[in-house]
C-alpha cells in the first residue's frame, strides 16, 4: 500500500517553506520564529503564536557572507541570509537559544539588521543535570513569559498546561511513527520521514498531530513490509534542512531507518516532567533530554544514547551529517565515533554545507559505504 497520499500534506508545507506561516499571519495569527529545539515552543504556543523553526534557506548566502566570518557554519549563514533577504516579514518575534557563540552573534546581527522584529535570547544552562540548572532555566522561562506577555497579554497557566499536553501527545505520536518506520523500512522513504519532521517545525502542532495520526493509521492498515535486504543505515548529526541528503543516501542503495538529528527524532525522544509550576515542568522536561552537542550532562557520555538508538533500530551502519565548522558537534563527534567503533558499528562521516546540494564526491563515499555494509553482510 502506497502511503504517499498521507505524506502529501506534509510535502505541500515543506515545498514552500514560508507559505504556511505567511498565510497564518495573513489570517491574523502572530508568528514566532525560533532556531533551536531548546526554545520553549510550548510557551510560544500557549501565548497564541504559531511557532516556526527557522532552518535557513537552500542556496547562496551572499548577504550573510558580508557579515559573517568564513568559519561560521552553513546553518548560521543560511539563517542570517534568510533574514537579510527579508524572507520573514511576518514574524512578530524571533527566539534564539544560546547554543554557541556563532548563533549568539547571529541573534545580534538579526536585531541590528531587521529593525522592528523583537529578538529574544533564551539562555539554556549548558550543564543540564543539576537542581541549579532547573532553577536557572525556570527563572529564564519566567523572564521569557513576561517578555511575551508584553506583546500578547497574559498567558494563563492552564493554557501552558494545554500546550504541554498537546506537545507530549505529538512526541508520542512521532515516536510511534519512527517505530513503525524502523520496523517496516521502505514503506516510507527516509526522505518522506524527513518531510514529516520538517513540516512539524512549520505547522500548527495540533494540525501536524492530526496528519501524523492519519499516517500512523494508514501505516497500520498497510500491514508489515517485507524486508528487501538493503543495508539499514542510521543518520546522526544535527541539522538536515535539505532532504536531498537523505535522498542521495537511499539512492546509493540503503534504507535510512532512524536518525539522531536535532531536526528529527531528538526532538521527540523525551517525556513530560512534573514541576511545581508549568514552567518548571518545561524546564525539567527539556533538561532531562539527552543533551545535544551544545549542552552537557555530567555522567552521560555523548555516544551512549546513539549506540542504544542504533541497536534499537537494528541499523548496520551510521552516517554522520556533520555541519562544517560546527565546533560543538565536532567535539561530540569524537566520543560518538569511538563509542560506535567499540560497539562494532561502522560509521561514515560527511562534512557538509547544509544549504547546498550534496556534491558528487559525497555520493561516491556513501555508495562505497553501502557497498562496504553489503560486503560485511556476506559470509
Amino acid at each position, binding site marked *: 500500500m502506497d502511503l504517499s497520499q498521507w505524506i502529501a500534506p506534509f510535502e505541500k508545507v515543506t515545498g514552500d517553506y514560508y507559505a504556511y506561516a505567511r498565510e497564518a499571519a495573513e489570517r491574523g495569527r502572530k508568528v514566532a520564529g525560533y532556531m533551536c529545539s531548546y526554545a520553549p515552543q510550548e510557551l510560544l504556543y500557549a501565548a497564541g503564536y504559531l511557532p516556526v523553526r527557522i532552518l535557513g534557506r537552500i542556496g547562496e548566502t551572499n548577504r550573510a557572507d558580508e557579515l559573517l566570518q568564513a568559519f561560521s557554519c552553513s546553518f548560521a549563514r543560511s539563517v542570517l541570509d534568510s533574514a537579510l533577504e527579508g524572507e520573514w516579514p511576518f514574524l512578530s518575534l524571533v527566539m534564539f537559544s544560546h547554543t554557541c557563540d556563532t548563533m549568539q552573534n547571529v541573534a545580534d546581527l538579526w536585531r541590528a539588521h531587521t529593525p522592528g522584529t523583537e529578538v529574544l535570547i533564551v539562555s539554556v544552562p549548558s550543564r543540564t543535570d543539576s537542581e541549579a540548572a532547573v532553577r536557572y532555566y525556570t527563572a529564564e522561562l519566567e523572564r521569557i513569559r513576561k517578555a511575551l506577555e508584553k506583546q500578547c497579554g497574559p498567558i494563563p497557566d492552564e493554557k501552558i498546561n494545554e500546550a504541554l499536553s498537546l506537545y507530549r501527545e505529538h512526541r508520542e505520536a512521532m515516536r510511534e511513527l519512527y517505530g513503525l518506520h524502523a520496523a517496516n523500512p521502505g514503506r516510507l522513504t527516509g526522505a518522506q520521514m524527513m518531510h514529516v519532521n520538517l513540516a512539524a517545525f512549520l505547522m500548527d502542532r495540533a494540525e501536524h498531530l492530526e496528519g501524523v495520526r492519519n499516517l500512523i493509521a494508514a501505516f497500520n492498515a498497510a500491514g508489515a513490509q517485507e524486508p528487501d535486504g538493503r543495508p539499514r543505515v542510521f543518520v546522526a548529526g544535527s541539522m538536515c534542512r535539505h532532504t536531498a541528503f537523505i535522498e542521495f543516501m537511499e539512492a546509493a542503495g540503503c534504507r535510512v531507518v532512524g536518525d539522531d538529528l536535532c531536526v528529527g527524532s531528538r526532538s521527540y525522544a523525551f517525556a513530560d516532567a512534573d514541576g511545581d509550576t508549568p514552567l518548571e515542568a518545561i524546564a525539567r522536561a527539556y533538561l532531562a533530554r539527552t543533551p545535544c552537542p551544545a549542552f552537557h550532562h555530567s555522567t552521560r557520555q555523548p555516544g551512549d544514547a546513539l549506540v542504544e538508538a542504533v541497536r534499537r533500530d537494528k541499523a548496520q551502519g551510521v552516517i554522520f551529517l556533520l555541519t562544517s565548522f560546527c565546533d560543538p558537534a565536532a567535539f561530540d563527534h569524537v566520543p560518538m565515533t569511538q563509542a560506535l567503533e567499540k560497539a562494532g558499528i561502522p560509521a561514515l562521516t560527511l562534512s557538509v554545507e547544509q544549504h547546498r546540494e550534496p556534491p558528487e*564526491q559525497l555520493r561516491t563515499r556513501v555508495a*562505497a559505504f553501502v*557497498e562496504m555494509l553489503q560486503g560485511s553482510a556476506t559470509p
Partner: protein
Amino acid sequence: MSGDRLYAGVDVGSATAKAVWINSAGETLGSSVIPSGGNLADAATRCLRLAAERAGCAPDAAACIVATGYGRERVPERSRAVTEITCHARGARALFSEARCVIDIGGQDSKAIALDDQGRVLRFEMNDKCAAGTGRFLEVMAHLLEIDLDDLSRRALAGTSPVAISSTCTVFAESEVISHLAQNQPVDDIVAGLCRSIASRVYGLVSRARLTPPAIMTGGVARNQGVVKAMEALLGSPIHVPESPQTVGAYGAALIARDDNASS
C-alpha cells in the same frame, strides 16, 4: 579463447578512462588508458573498444561489464556501477594478496582504504574537494616546470635535497614553486619537494583511516617513484606498486563483473 567467458571493467576517472578485459581465470587479456575528455560515455566506449582490440576479442564479447570511477553512471555498456573504493580494493587484493591497505592517488581523488584479513573494505577516507594531494597537483606543477609528466619520476629521484613546499593548496604551492625558481633552486630538488608534499598530504588520509602495512599503491600517481619513495618513508614500510597501477580499479571492476556473472 574458445568458449571461455570474457569480462570487462571500465574505470572512468576525472583525468583518464581505463578499461581491462579478463578471462574467467582473471587473467588480463588487454587494457587501455585514454583521456576522459568532456564526453564520459564516449570515452568509456572508446576505451572499452581499444582494450577489446588489444585483447583480440569482439567489443561486444563481454558476458558482463562493471563500471567504476566518477563517470561510472555514464557508461552505456555497464551491467552495473560499483564505486572505485570497492573496485580498487578488489583489484589490489587480487594483485597483491598480502595487502591490508590500498593507497590510491588518482587525478582528482586520493583514497586510503583499510582491508580486513579477507580483503574486504574495513574503513576508508577520501580527500576533500580540493586538488591538493592528487594527480592534478602534479600535472599543474609539471606544466609550470615544463617537464613531461612521465619524466617527473626520474627528476624527483635525482633531487638530492628536496625543497620544502608548505602550502597544501595547489594554487599557493604553484607560487611557492615560482619563488624557489626565482631563488635558483635546482629543478630536481623542487620536483622532489613536490612529491614529498603530495605524499605528506595523502599521509593525512592514511593516518585517519589508520592504515597498516602491507600496503599497495594504485592510481596514476603510483607511477611516480618520487611519491612512492616519500610515502614509504612516511609509512616506514615498503609499498607494493603493481605493474600497471592506473588500471587496478578497472581490473577490480572486471573481477567483480566475473563474480556477478558466476553468482547470477
